[in-house]
């Protein structure tokens, strides 16, 4: 596949992530912060997000598995995850966290367990999508091409 085709495929794929609500405008902010002097900024931040999120999801699973659930602790973890997903533009994860927090406030164990499943689902979905997108970018760069900038207004 030649570079032009790969670039078009990447643009279409990235646009679909915005259309489907996986990513929001904050992700564009991240891309705009990447330049020749910081060529790996997006990969670095996204990798940090993956590591941080997986740890938080483990902590959440453990916290909700206790005989006496400490909802303050659960809420604190969800707050962190909401923050980082918001900062990178992972919209669906962020929204799942917002719902999660309201059930933490109610101290509703069944609902919070469901929310945890929901957040995990959204997280693994966006992780998969981002990894695919970054792989496409890598292929373009390896073939000597540049990564096209997504324009707002679609």
């Amino acid at each position: 596949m030649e570079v032009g085709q790969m670039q078009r495929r990447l643009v279409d794929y990235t646009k679909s992530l915005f259309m489907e609500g996986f990513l929001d405008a904050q992700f564009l902010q991240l891309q705009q912060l990447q330049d020749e002097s910081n060529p790996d900024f997006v990969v670095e931040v996204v990798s940090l997000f993956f590591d941080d999120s997986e740890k938080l999801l483990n902590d959440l699973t453990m916290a909700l598995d206790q005989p006496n659930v400490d909802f303050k602790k659960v809420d604190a973890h969800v707050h962190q995850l909401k923050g980082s997903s918001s900062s990178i533009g992972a919209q669906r994860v962020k929204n799942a966290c917002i719902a999660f927090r309201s059930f933490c406030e109610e101290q509703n164990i069944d609902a919070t367990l469901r929310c945890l499943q929901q957040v995990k689902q959204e997280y693994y979905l966006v992780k998969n999508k981002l990894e695919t997108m970054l792989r496409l970018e890598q292929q373009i760069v390896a073939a000597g091409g540049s990564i096209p900038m997504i324009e707002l207004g679609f």
Partner: protein
Amino acid sequence: MAVELGDEPHVLAVDDNLIDRKLVERLLKNSSCKVTTAENALRALDYLGLGNDTLEGTVSEVNMIITDYCMPGMTGYELLKKIKESSVLKEVPVVIMSSENIPTRISQCLEEGAKMFMLKPLKQSDVKQLKWHLMKCRN
């Protein structure tokens, strides 16, 4: 604190969230600021020379402090108060960031002397605004 015009302003960014620290650092560096990050208020106080663990001769000059509001242990609001209580540091502009838009929180911080309150997630336009304020303070 006398600072030469044309020098890169030095900003201390305080946030317990690793991703947010990375983002604010990049945003500030993109606006030609020198950046030091701290993962909580106590470390920030140490860095500023107000902490219990500050070593002799390691206090650094800082032109602005930007801090998250919600942090475990000491909040950004409590950090703001400590800075404003210090005769050495009270003139340093402090900016509070939060992911939550709570009017009482905002007015509380501004009343305590915060220069600005910014909603997270931060964008480039926010940091440009910040830099403009910073340059204004220096002149």
